[in-house]
């Protein structure tokens, strides 16, 4: 018995030592993140804001000076931290800054302070500069800001303040320029364009004051994006014979004087919540713009554009041929958006690929509004609309349909309508997103897709989007 007890104790002791050994071994494998080379840690830290990177300097000796060599600084200032920012910049040692992002939330900092920070970045040959002023009322840009040979990407976000005071602009290496809510006059636009010989991408989001955008002398500029607020009616003129890609969001006349090299376009019409627009006016505007986008190979349209084109379909407006090969539509399955899709398909005889995104994002016109407009046109258009597209609910009715069967019927009617209006389509991809579709519903819908593909050569794909 003693022998047996002794052996039992021996076994227990062996178990304990084994456990201790593995525990120690696990701890020894512990800190592998600190053993990674500097470049990898820098890369990881560059994905965080600077304050977080600075906090890692309190971890250990290994981490202490890592943040100083980071090539990207991302400073979002939330409080009266001018001294803090000065401290950061004093201790920063990297000789070159690749990207400098500065976000100022209040107007406690003096113009001189802010200028010193911008100068710091420019003195380190910053390549990607991003300045966001959320509230600053008194700040004006210094002259030296307009002259740089190192900046390749510039993004400025203001709150409807003036941007270029009037001095010469020379951003020799600038390739991407993005301005948001900056007030720029026509003369300033000219100065900027002529001062950026290498500009490839220009984005003007909700910028005011200018009326004409003449990019004819900008040979390298191939991508243009412009967005306007719907409640400030401003007509603009675009002369851009060299651009390949145009993204436009407007609610007033945008005269596309020359977009002859365009191959890809994204058209969106902004409407305000007060519905203070005239459908006729928008219709004329959209048809004119689409006429200019006739030769585009890849066209994307928003929900509001579809609604306006629906009016064109119901009123049987004739149109010239669109040469589009790939059409992307953003849609919600409501009655006012379906005829517009049909109209686009009827007028695109060479269409090969159609991509549909169902989404809740973006404002749409109320179907009641469209209905009352059609009524006002006489000719019983409202009745015709209800007859031909009755399978689709109006925007007020969509909330009541949630069952799998009704969703499937809706999707099937939509796809049937699409296939009826096209002869050349090869591929149809439908991304189901928004509140009408979820993962569970999607699985059920997927099983029913083969029944649709039976009568057609078109390859139909359903995908779940999480937008």
């Amino acid at each position, binding site marked *: 018995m003693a022998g047996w007890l002794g052996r039992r104790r021996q076994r227990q002791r062996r178990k304990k030592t084994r456990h201790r050994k593995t525990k120690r071994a696990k*701890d020894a*494998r*512990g*800190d*592998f*993140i*600190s053993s*990674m080379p500097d470049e*990898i840690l820098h*890369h*990881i*830290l560059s*994905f*965080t*804001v*600077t*304050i*977080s*990177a*600075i*906090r*890692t*300097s*309190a*971890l*250990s*000796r*290994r*981490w*202490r000076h890592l943040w100083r060599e980071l090539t990207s600084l991302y400073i979002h200032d939330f*409080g*009266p*931290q*001018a*001294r*803090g*920012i000065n*401290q*950061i910049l004093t*201790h920063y040692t990297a000789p070159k800054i690749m990207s400098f992002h500065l976000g100022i939330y209040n107007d406690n900092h003096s113009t001189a302070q802010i200028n010193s920070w911008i100068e710091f970045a420019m003195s380190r040959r910053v390549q990607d500069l991003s300045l966001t002023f959320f509230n600053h009322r008194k700040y004006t840009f210094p002259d030296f800001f307009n002259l740089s040979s190192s900046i390749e990407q510039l993004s400025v976000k203001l709150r409807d303040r003036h941007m270029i005071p009037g001095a010469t602009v020379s951003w020799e290496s600038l390739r991407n320029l993005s301005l948001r809510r900056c007030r720029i006059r026509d003369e300033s636009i000219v100065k900027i364009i002529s001062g950026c010989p290498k500009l490839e991408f220009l984005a003007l989001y909700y910028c005011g004051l200018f009326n004409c955008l003449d990019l004819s002398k900008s040979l390298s500029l191939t991508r243009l994006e412009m967005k306007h607020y719907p409640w400030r009616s401003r007509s603009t003129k675009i002369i851009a014979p060299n651009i390949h890609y145009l993204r436009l969001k407007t609610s007033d006349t945008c005269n596309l004087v020359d977009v002859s090299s365009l191959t890809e376009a994204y058209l969106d019409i902004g409407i305000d919540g007060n519905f203070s627009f005239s459908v006729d006016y928008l219709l004329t505007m959209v048809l004119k713009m689409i006429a200019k986008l006739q030769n585009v190979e890849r066209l994307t349209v928003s929900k509001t554009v579809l609604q306006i084109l629906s009016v064109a379909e119901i009123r049987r407006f004739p149109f010239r041929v669109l040469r589009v090969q790939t059409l992307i539509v953003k849609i919600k399955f409501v009655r006012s958006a379906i005829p517009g899709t049909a109209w686009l398909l009827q007028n695109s005889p060479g269409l090969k690929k159609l991509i549909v995104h169902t989404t809740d994002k973006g404002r749409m016109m109320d179907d009641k509004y469209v209905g009352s407009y059609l009524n006002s046109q006489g000719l019983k258009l409202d009745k015709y609309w209800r007859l031909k597209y009755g399978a689709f609910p109006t925007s007020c009715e969509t909330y009541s349909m949630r069952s799998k069967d009704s969703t499937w019927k809706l999707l099937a009617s939509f796809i049937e309508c699409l296939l009826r209006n096209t002869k050349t389509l090869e591929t149809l991809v439908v991304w189901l997103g928004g509140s009408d579709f979820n993962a569970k519903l999607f699985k059920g819908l997927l099983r029913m897709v083969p029944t649709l593909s039976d009568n057609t050569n078109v390859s139909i794909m359903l*995908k*779940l*989007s*999480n*937008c």
Partner: protein
Amino acid sequence: MSKIIVLKCVGHNPKDFELDEAVAVQFGCIKDLFHSDFDAESKIVVDVPMKFNSYIIGRILEFCSSRASFSSDRAYWEQDFFHPCREPNQRKRKELIAIMEASEYLGMESLVELTTQSLANYLKGKNPLTIRSLWKVEGDLTAEEEAKALAMGVAKLGH
């Protein structure tokens, strides 16, 4: 003639992975092979360095054919592969770093960005003490040095 690329993993658990075109074009370093004329062979073998074992490559290929690689949204990545908060396991984090390095080698930028951002989320907005316990970093600074480091950049006016 459809080309097949074979990824040959050596090391602890050697394994060969056959990739078809749809998957292989997602790798920057392999994409070019499809555009050159390899009439003689329809099968090309790529040797993967020893430090990337077959498990890691397997995970990367899993990613390539999952919905996470088609969408630019992080949500799919976090749901299917790696959500920082739900992975308290040190081994999983090590795996994440290995995937990051391997996808850097293979030239798959989207995956590099996803993995690096996941790692960065561990450091973002966290107290150094939390980071130390998470990653088992040994603190070897004096109290004074540590206080100085923590005070950096957060000085308030008047101090």
